[in-house]
């Protein structure tokens, strides 16, 4: 397919070039001069081996101040006065309002329609995922009142012209309907459908959802309540300034009469262990191994995070080295954990060269089996720990990074202190603990495999011993049958 594409493009362009005057090269051929002059001291003692690693430095200390507004909105403040900027994030757990089985889809649409800033509103954004909705904004020192005002406008009111919301809804529904053919979005949907089913908010996928604006307004009215929300402000501000400004903009936001019900945990994963969405719209094959893990509050969480890091979180990780560097089966290999209030989802995947989709997937499964069968080496453990801690530290380098991370983690039921303590907990994990969580959560019976790509390259999928692949549509909703 690619050769045909290249040939067609070439023939058209070469034909076009032939009609033009002869090209006059302005850039001469490069001068391929040999090295001359002096030689470097490549055998000097300091070059023979790397400088000794320094001891790990202390983790940065973060102090969180907390208070509640009269309407019950919880506010967290992290003062950082080293840079003249600030950021804020309002995060709302939509789970209590999301009991209906189309909640996840509606939340996504809600964000596209109501959480996009109108014209002229700068540095502000909003969105919704399976767990919650957020509105964030940022600015320079002195912008606090503008920042919180912009957020309150976006989260709690409708400032754009009415026709704008009609237009946004029409576009959102259209794009949603068309996304069923999108390989990347389908990949993510099928993953979640395998893990959580397609009738739960974490995994909900519905082809035919056409809400009205009033449906979305109703969801917003039910979901955006201060008792389910947290406001985090980070940067060059004081807690007193935040309190005064937050009361101005969010003080009249009141809680509903009674507490909202907590969302039900997703049912046990069942049904297909291997699924495929067939499409010829991509030349590579997307593939992943997915599994459920512990909650972020579970004592296993640090070891699980480290395990996922070790498997595919960096270029030195097991799967990256084996599948990309040694097997050359995929250009990109990676892993991730998504935390939900009642569970988590791990994915280890890659974009495979199509002829190597099955062998590449076998490489990923072998990497998991390796960690299950034997405790990782001290070197591999140390590298993974330092990489994981480094990622946490980098996420906390910016005001907006701290605000987003803290707001999201707190809604998972973790205390602010525990959120910042996670890197220290990761440093304390042992090799045996990593192997233990691998055995507990990544036992072969708990793993699921997802492919998206040309079926021609998936015909040997049974070699993976996950059974006959189930064919699904791009919504993870309709099981079509075997490949």
């Amino acid at each position: 397919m690619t050769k045909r594409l290249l040939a067609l493009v070439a023939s058209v362009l070469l034909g076009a070039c032939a009609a033009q005057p002869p090209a006059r090269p302005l850039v001469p051929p490069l001068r391929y001069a040999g090295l001359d002059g002096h030689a470097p001291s490549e055998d000097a003692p300091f070059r023979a081996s790397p400088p000794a690693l320094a001891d790990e430095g202390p983790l940065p200390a973060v102090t969180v101040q907390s208070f509640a507004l009269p309407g019950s909105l919880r506010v967290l403040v992290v003062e950082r006065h080293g840079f003249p900027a600030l950021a804020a994030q309002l995060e709302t757990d939509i789970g209590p309002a999301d009991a209906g089985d189309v909640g996840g889809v509606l939340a996504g649409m809600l964000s596209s329609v109501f959480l996009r800033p109108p014209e002229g509103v700068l540095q502000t954004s909003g969105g919704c995922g399976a767990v919650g909705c957020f509105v964030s904004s940022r600015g320079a020192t002195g912008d606090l009142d503008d920042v919180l005002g912009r957020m309150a406008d976006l989260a709690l009111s409708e400032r754009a012209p009415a026709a704008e919301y009609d237009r946004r809804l029409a576009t959102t529904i259209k794009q949603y309907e068309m996304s069923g053919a999108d390989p990347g979005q389908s990949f993510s949907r099928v993953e979640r459908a395998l893990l959580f089913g397609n009738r739960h908010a974490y995994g909900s996928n519905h082809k035919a959802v056409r809400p009205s604006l009033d449906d979305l307004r109703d969801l917003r009215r039910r979901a955006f309540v201060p008792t389910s929300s947290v406001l985090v402000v980070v940067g060059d501000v004081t807690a007193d300034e935040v309190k005064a400004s937050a009361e101005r903009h969010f003080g009249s936001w009141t809680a509903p009469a009674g507490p909202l019900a907590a969302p039900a945990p997703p049912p046990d994963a069942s049904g297909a262990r291997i699924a495929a969405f067939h499409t010829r719209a991509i030349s590579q094959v997307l593939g992943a191994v997915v599994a459920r893990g512990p909650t972020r509050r579970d004592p296993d969480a640090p070891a699980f995070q480290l395990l996922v890091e070790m498997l595919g979180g960096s270029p030195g990780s097991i799967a990256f080295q084996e599948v990309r560097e040694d097997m050359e089966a995929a250009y990109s290999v990676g892993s991730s954990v998504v935390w939900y209030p009642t569970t988590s989802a791990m994915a280890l995947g890659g974009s495979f060269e199509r002829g190597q989709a099955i062998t590449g997937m076998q490489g990923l499964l072998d990497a998991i089996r390796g960690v299950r069968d034997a405790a990782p080496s001290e070197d591999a453990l140390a590298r993974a720990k330092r990489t994981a801690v480094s990622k946490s530290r980098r996420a906390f380098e910016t005001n907006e990074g701290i605000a987003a991370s803290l707001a999201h983690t707190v809604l998972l039921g973790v205390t602010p202190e525990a959120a910042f303590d996670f890197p220290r907990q990761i440093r304390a994990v042992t090799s045996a603990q990593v192997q233990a969580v691998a055995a507990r959560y990544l036992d072969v019976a708990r793993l699921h495999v997802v492919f998206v790509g040309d079926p021609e390259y998936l015909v040997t999928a049974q070699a993976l011993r996950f059974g006959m692949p189930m064919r699904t549509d791009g919504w993870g909703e309709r099981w079509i049958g075997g490949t």
Partner: protein
Amino acid sequence: MRLGAPAHIRALFAAGVLFALSLCPDSEARDLPGLSLPVEQHALANGLHVVLAPDPAVDSATVIVRYDVGSGDDPTGKEGLAHLVEHMMFDGSRHVPHGEYWRWIERAGGSGINGTTALDATRYVANVPPEQLPLLLWLESDRMGFPVLDEDGLRRAKTLIADEMRGKTGDQSMGWVMPVLFSELFPSWHPYHMDPGRSGLDGITLADVRAFLRTWYAPRNAWLFVAGKIDAAATLALAEKYFGDLPGDAPPVRPGLPRSWRLPHARIVMGAGVLRDRVAIGWPAPPLGDPVDAALDVAAAILSDPSGRLQRALLAKGLVVSVHAGESSQSRGSAFVISAVTADGVPAEVVEDAIERTVDDLAKTITPEECARARSEWATTALLRLQTPAGRASHLSSFDSALEPWGLHKYDAIGPGEIASAVRSVLAPSNRVSVVVHHDNRYPTGGVVLSREERP
């Protein structure tokens, strides 16, 4: 031979930068707070440029090594050579066996490891806890001085790049549209000219790679940027220790290029297996550093405001589902591009006309408020990007930083008049190239050129 003399310091700039935003001449002024971030620039005796941005208030250090060579310097018939060399530079060096580069960085708690090949530069970046900076500089110096190149690494790099390019072009909507557009915007003699139907990857030999390295990967053609929690004097001493004895010739002098050129008013029609029709319109523009290029940056920001002119003219009227404008600023020439995804049933020609009318209208009716908002948004974004060592090193390693250390005053002198003048002189209908993509499942997602015509 060790060039161990004390570094020849050329303090081109070592200054606290006071940031005070002024707005368009006709608009109300708004002040942002002061920002003091010192920058030092030095040159070692072998020509390596060293730029340091110390800040005790942050928690990490970022190193970027930039070589002033990119895909615009690929020899004819060897297209892809610069990118291939970038990949092979991760394969190991004399004192760092294959695969150990990643592991050493990870043992040090490093992250953000990457290599990028642009038209004019190739960059290697990594971030480490500040106490591990010596290791990172040691690794980079070994890579600069003693890369290990072999046939197996060459073959592996070719495989990975072919895979990478398939993902970036063949599998992405609009994947081939920009290469096709750039093949028209930059004539065949221009170093940025792309030929989407041609790849020199297969024909590249190990001798080509070695020659390319010797020609371009010399200290005299390289920059070392270090930003973060560092001691400037100690870091400079480390740079001298690890890089100071690496040799290298001066790089070739590139010939000058015309500042502008006229294009045939070309229109390309493509077919692609995508869900909707697409339109991309481009104009060649003056290079980075030219005042017109900066004015076009602001013009693009005004057009692309989330609910601004293009949104009102196209999205609000139901002609498109998305639209974006941007100025791709480069050292040897820029390109102004507007791209859109059409709505169902809307002919691409209607979208083309609407874009053209919107651009023409901009030159006539730009307001001080629009200008002020675009500049304010840009300045705030620029300020916030400087929160991290990685953001600072990234900015310093851009060619923009040669104009002003942190680039915070870049648009101070640009008002409605400058923007209107730039739009009239550069974004002329006679000098534009249009690429129209019709959705058709018979073709691959990345697209195939079906026809090309030149309009009078």
